[in-house]
């Protein structure tokens, strides 16, 4: 853990350039975040890597790249879906200097916050380096980037709060099926090529472009509850407690984390990593290949449509791996029985098999987008307004992804050239539900700055906020 903290800290402070899009839910660059994570049809240059490679050619410069300077590009999202600052103040604040004593009504309200499971999540993504080279349209554009993604979410089952608040009366059932956790830290080295396609639907399209990215993935840490259905506790007569366990957890860690497993099936194969120091370039615990493919079309009358599928592929984890499983039913009727206590301990911990390998899908996502640019005349409404809409559909629930459809809409308004962009947008559905994004952007010629939050409601009514998200970035363009 110490190594993890050190590594994350070092990475964030010294080499973070964060703006990549990831999965249907993952953190985004500041521009798209301010538009409610809307970016499929309007991403440009290196910002399009990971979203729609066809948009790489949509750049107003020959070269664009991002570095740590002048502004480190950072995007962090964290929060819960169940507890606001007001809730925290109420339940964890004091009454006359003393801890609050929870009445029955308080307990009922607190427990209801966990209805369906209390989600705690955190997403971070950063680009160590990205570069775009835009050549003649007949040749196309090339891009390269190194992106890191740290994603994690934990769903606290309501049964836990129910147990803590109400205890365990007889003849009750506590289901832990809503418990879940996902976390990983992966890095991809992405090579992107995009070019315009001529001679196809020319009568309908102003421009049609296609792009493809090939990604080499390195995984440094992975932990996921693959199976959590069928886990529950039943209480019966004589305070008897029956545990029903049915879970599968997979994990893998880079040697850097010095994780030691206890193999319950073969003690001779206990992992025994040597301690190693944190480094921004640790040895991977898994590797894989991924592909992005996308198309973008500019219609007449300033309309743009976009279609992409990102992260087709998988990662095979084969270093410091463990698959922990538990399945069965265990009844506790005698706590004085050493055998029963041992059985609880054994079955709660499950069976861990270490040293094998397993494969996880990349957060494959279908991305559809459309945008229209309005050019207003002076006297009616000034400047230009770009309105965009996205539909993101994940194909799995890997970290950063969700099979719940997310729809977003956003607008970017610039009063005049040289005036900061004002952006706002809304996101609906998906894993996290409604969000209101807001941000500003400054185009200073060869340098672009962006600042955004995905949760404007947190600023407008912070005591009701459940989330916190901030993104800022910069891009050089020549």
């Amino acid at each position, binding site marked *: 853990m110490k190594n993890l903290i050190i590594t994350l800290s070092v990475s964030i402070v010294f080499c973070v350039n964060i703006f990549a899009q990831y999965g249907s839910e993952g953190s985004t660059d500041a521009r798209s975040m301010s538009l409610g994570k809307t970016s499929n049809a309007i991403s440009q240059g290196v910002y399009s890597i990971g979203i729609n490679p066809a948009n790489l050619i949509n750049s107003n410069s020959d070269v664009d790249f991002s570095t740590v300077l002048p502004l480190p590009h950072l995007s962090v999202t964290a929060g819960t879906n169940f507890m606001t*600052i*007001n809730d*925290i*103040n109420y*339940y*964890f*604040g*004091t009454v006359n*200097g*003393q*801890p*609050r*004593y*929870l009445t029955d009504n*308080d*307990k009922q309200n607190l427990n209801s916050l966990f209805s369906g499971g209390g989600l705690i999540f955190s997403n971070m993504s950063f680009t160590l380096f990205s570069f775009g080279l835009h050549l003649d349209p007949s040749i196309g554009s090339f891009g390269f980037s190194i992106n890191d993604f740290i994603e994690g979410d934990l769903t606290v089952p309501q049964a836990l709060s129910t147990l*803590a*608040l*109400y*205890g*365990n*009366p*007889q003849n009750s059932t506590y289901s832990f099926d809503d418990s879940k956790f996902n976390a990983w830290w992966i890095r991809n080295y992405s090579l992107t090529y995009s070019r315009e396609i001529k001679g196809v639907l020319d009568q309908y399209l102003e421009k049609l472009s296609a792009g493809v990215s090939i990604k080499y993935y390195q995984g440094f840490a992975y932990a996921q509850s693959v199976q959590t259905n069928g886990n529950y506790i039943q*209480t019966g007569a*004589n*305070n*008897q*407690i029956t545990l029903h366990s049915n879970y599968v957890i997979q994990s893998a860690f880079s040697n850097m984390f010095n994780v030691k497993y206890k193999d319950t099936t073969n003690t001779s194969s206990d992992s025994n990593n040597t301690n190693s120091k944190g480094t921004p370039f640790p040895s991977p615990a898994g590797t894989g290949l991924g592909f992005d493919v996308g198309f973008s079309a500019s219609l007449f009358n300033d309309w743009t449509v976009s279609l992409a599928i990102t992260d087709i592929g998988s990662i095979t984890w084969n270093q410091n791996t463990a698959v922990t499983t538990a399945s069965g039913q265990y009844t*506790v*009727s*005698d*706590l*004085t*029985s050493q055998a029963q206590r041992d059985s609880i301990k054994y079955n709660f911990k499950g069976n861990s098999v270490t040293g094998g390998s397993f494969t996880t899908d990349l957060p494959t996502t279908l991305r559809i987008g459309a945008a229209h640019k309005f050019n207003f005349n002076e006297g009616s*409404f*000034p*400047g230009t307004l770009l309105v965009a809409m996205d539909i993101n559909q994940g194909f799995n629930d890997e970290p950063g992804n969700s099979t719940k459809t997310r729809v977003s809409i956003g607008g970017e308004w610039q*009063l*005049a050239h040289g*005036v*900061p962009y*004002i952006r706002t947008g809304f996101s609906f559905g998906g894993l996290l539900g409604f969000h209101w994004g*807001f941000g*500003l952007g400054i185009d200073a010629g060869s340098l672009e700055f962006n600042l955004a939050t995905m949760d*404007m409601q947190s*600023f*407008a*009514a*912070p*005591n009701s*906020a459940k989330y916190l998200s901030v993104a800022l970035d910069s891009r050089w363009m020549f």
Partner: protein
Amino acid sequence: MNFNYRNFPIVLVSILLSLWIGGCIDLPTNLKVPQWDVDLNVPLVNRSYTLNDIIKEQKYISIQGTSSADSIYVLQSDTYSQSADVSNFIQLNATSSSTGNIIPVVNSVSATIYLPIPKGAILDNAIFKSGFLSLYAANPNPEVVDILIAFPGIIQNGSELKISMTVPASGQDSVQTPLAGCTYLLPANQTTQNQGYIQLVISGSSISLPLGSFVTMSIYSSNFSFSSATGYLPEQSLGVKSQQFSLNLGDAQNYGNKASLKYAELDMDVKYYSPASNPFGILVDSLNIIGVRNDGSQLALKDSTGSSNITFTINGTKHLSFTQDNSNITSFISFLPSTILLSADYIMNPSNSTGTVTNQDSVVFSTNFSTSSILALQKTLITDTTSINITNQDSLKIQDARSAYINVNVQNGIPLNAWLTINFVDGGYNHLFSDSLSFLAANINTATGEVTSAFTTNNVIQLDSAQAAKLAGAHYAIVSINVQTNDASSSPAQYVAIRPNDSIQVTVYGGVNYHVNTNDLK
């Protein structure tokens, strides 16, 4: 007034900043985990115990039978032995004599005299362990007389015993001869009517005394004792011999006056040990078996007629069995004495027959008591002040409990009622509070005493916050247990069969209304 659209961004940002500032976040500064009450319920014990689990086989308690129907506890005492030697029987310590015998003083002429063997014994052969022959001679003649006394039946150092005497003129002489180590063999020429006598052949001589001269002799025997003797020894009481020994029944001793046994048995084996092949018979007369407790109270074992004098004859071995059918053995063992007294008069050769006896002969009694666990038991304290250390409870934070309960459910398949009293005390053994539990005995068939079904008793110990606080200060739980069978005091008592396979199902569960205060967990 015309709105300057170029100021729109400033206006918009201002509006948003106003929104932000207006919605000032009320950041918590002094976070404390709330407190609440919660009911925690846990199963504590759910086990089935057979008596076999509880009462382990030990020195005095064993199990007879294997099936659940016939296995039974047997309380078995040590085997006690008493040995009575019969050396008195071969001590003919009465004296015998033959006096005033006229012995002629004529060369080559002898006189035969018979000295009676004491107590009328008739010996075919014997080995003297001790004894003396005393001879007295009186010489009325004016000349010295030499006398030679031969004992044809007494062998000393491989030769016939001979004694010489020289009696002075007009004088007397005496001699005493020890017989230890001599053997006796009835001379072949000794007539049947003289077989109870020791034969002496005496001759006298002088230098010049005339024919018709004589001397007078008297012979005495004393302290005859044999290491072995064959022949006839008259009936003889060896006297009353007594011996006592401690009755060791382990913890069962604590149930005196409380337990009433249905079945009990005393086995006695009596054996007459002798290296000879034809020993004499022996009569054990008025054998008394008396149980004595430490307080001095006594109870005698009596036969079915009510007599405490037990008389029997043995010639070799004898087995006596005292059961509830022929004695008061059940009462005797229920009395659970601490000491057993055995006393009897041993009479050798009660039938006046012939045989062989040696000083190695002995009579050995071996006795043991046994009883099965079919009994009636009045209320009896079986465990007192058993201390249970319960000091390791700090981590449980019992003092934070608003209330607590422990539910003890017992399905009792053992035909014993039980009462538990639990006293909680502090480190100085000062009383804090106490509670009691009772568990009723299994249902039985009153005719056979056998368990027919378990009886379920549910006890709930309810603690309020004050008791919970006291429990938090408790260091020891002192437990006393009383047990009793149903109708143990009625007449006749209701017996129950307590079998090793009798079982008791104990289910204990509890709960605590706990005041969650995480500040106390720091």
